[in-house]
């Protein structure tokens, strides 16, 4: 979706403002939100994915919200979409009368280790690569209405395959339920001038990771 989250190349957002000695969380609720996302995720019932939920936040709201407010808002929508809570329960803060009580999946003893776990087993089988390192390619000019990882600023631009990262599941909304989701992801080098014109440095480049589906031979 050509949404506000797809920010690469915008110029009117103001200066970058680093903060000295920044704490991990600025307010207590921010940590609670991140922890709740992980703990609810550990139930295995949070079927609605995170990124599309964040990108569905209306643009003005998206810009107003902090990172953790976006994640909090998205968590609520994901839990409702996944049937874990109802909107009425969220609004009241109370479980609906007669609703069943689960047992928390994430036990305190396991929680401290959860951030150090990685999904088991990489994907090694799937479609053969359609491109090879060094090959000239062009990012497709496509504008899917759902979630995609192909940033707008790269569409229609030509570059070269710099590395083949191997096989990963395509994250685009259009890929859900499709049998060719497993595709090679490549690092593609785009010259800064190809992306931004001749005001850009002749030396500079942007590297973007792209699934097979995003590319065509140039």
């Amino acid at each position, binding site marked *: 979706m050509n949404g506000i989250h797809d920010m*690469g190349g915008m110029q009117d957002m*103001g200066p970058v403002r680093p903060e000295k000695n920044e704490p991990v969380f600025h*307010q207590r609720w921010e940590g609670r939100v991140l922890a709740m996302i992980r703990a609810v995720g550990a139930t295995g019932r949070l079927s609605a994915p995170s*990124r599309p939920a964040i990108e569905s936040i*209306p643009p003005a709201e998206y810009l107003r919200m902090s990172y953790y407010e976006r994640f909090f808002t998205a968590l609520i929508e994901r839990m409702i979409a996944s049937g874990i809570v109802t909107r009425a329960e969220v609004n009241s803060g109370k479980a609906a009368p007669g609703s069943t009580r689960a047992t928390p999946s994430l*036990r305190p003893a396991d929680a401290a280790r959860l*951030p150090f776990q990685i999904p088991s087993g990489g994907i090694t089988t799937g479609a053969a690569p359609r491109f090879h390192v060094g090959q000239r390619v062009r990012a497709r000019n496509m504008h899917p209405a759902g979630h995609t990882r192909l940033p707008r600023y790269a569409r229609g631009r030509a570059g070269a395959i710099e590395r083949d990262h191997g096989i990963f599941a395509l994250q685009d909304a259009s890929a859900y339920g499709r049998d060719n989701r497993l595709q090679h992801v490549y690092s593609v080098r785009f010259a800064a001038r190809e*992306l931004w014109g001749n005001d850009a440095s002749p030396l500079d480049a942007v590297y973007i*990771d792209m699934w097979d589906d995003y590319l065509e031979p140039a």
Partner: protein
Amino acid sequence: MAKSKKSPLGRRGFLKGAAAGAAAFAANPQSVGAAAQEQDHDHQTVPSDLTLRVKSLESLLVEKGIVDRAALDALIDTYEHKVGPRNGARVVARAWTDPEYKKRLLADGTAAIGELGYQGEQGAHIRVVENTSKVHNLVVCTLCSCYPWPVLGLPPVWYKSAPYRSRAVIDPRGVLQEFGTEIADDIEVRVWDSTAEQRYLVLPERPPGTEKLTEEELAALVTRDAMIGVAKVSGSKGGRI
């Protein structure tokens, strides 16, 4: 993952849900400017609307038996104290002092970082890119906020902010200048936009005059910002984080 072909959240459905939040927002207009740049944080003594809403959701999830409060405490403790840029600094210092390690690190970042015991979420596929006298690397995630958590911890606010995400790709040298980092015209700037599953860590140049330092002393020089690529490592302590 989701089996439905449509996005689970139609905008209409979302708007309905956002109404309550918008009403609360209107009652607290003071937060408009504060949140606009995602930089300023209210340090207020009365509980904010978000504090109350998050508390309310937490008690609902506890009541329904979905989360355990002590598990949340343990997760937060890990994020605050067990992951962070000191991990990445040790990786960098090892690469500076052990040429064989550096080779492995550049060839397979995830495995070499794992040798030092660092692994975890947002770090299943880490690629390390090396700064040299000819190349300067800069990492961004224009679409979201992707960041190599096992080596850098949670990302700072500026990394997740609209100004950085928007301009790092179109004006990297301008962004670097805002961090006080000047890159000469004859040095190539490479920007890595973390759009897929790879996460990126910059291996900064080892500063001159540090030949006699131990690995531990070198690690103390390495800053988070240098490993994102917005700063260089200085030979003396006292740089930014």
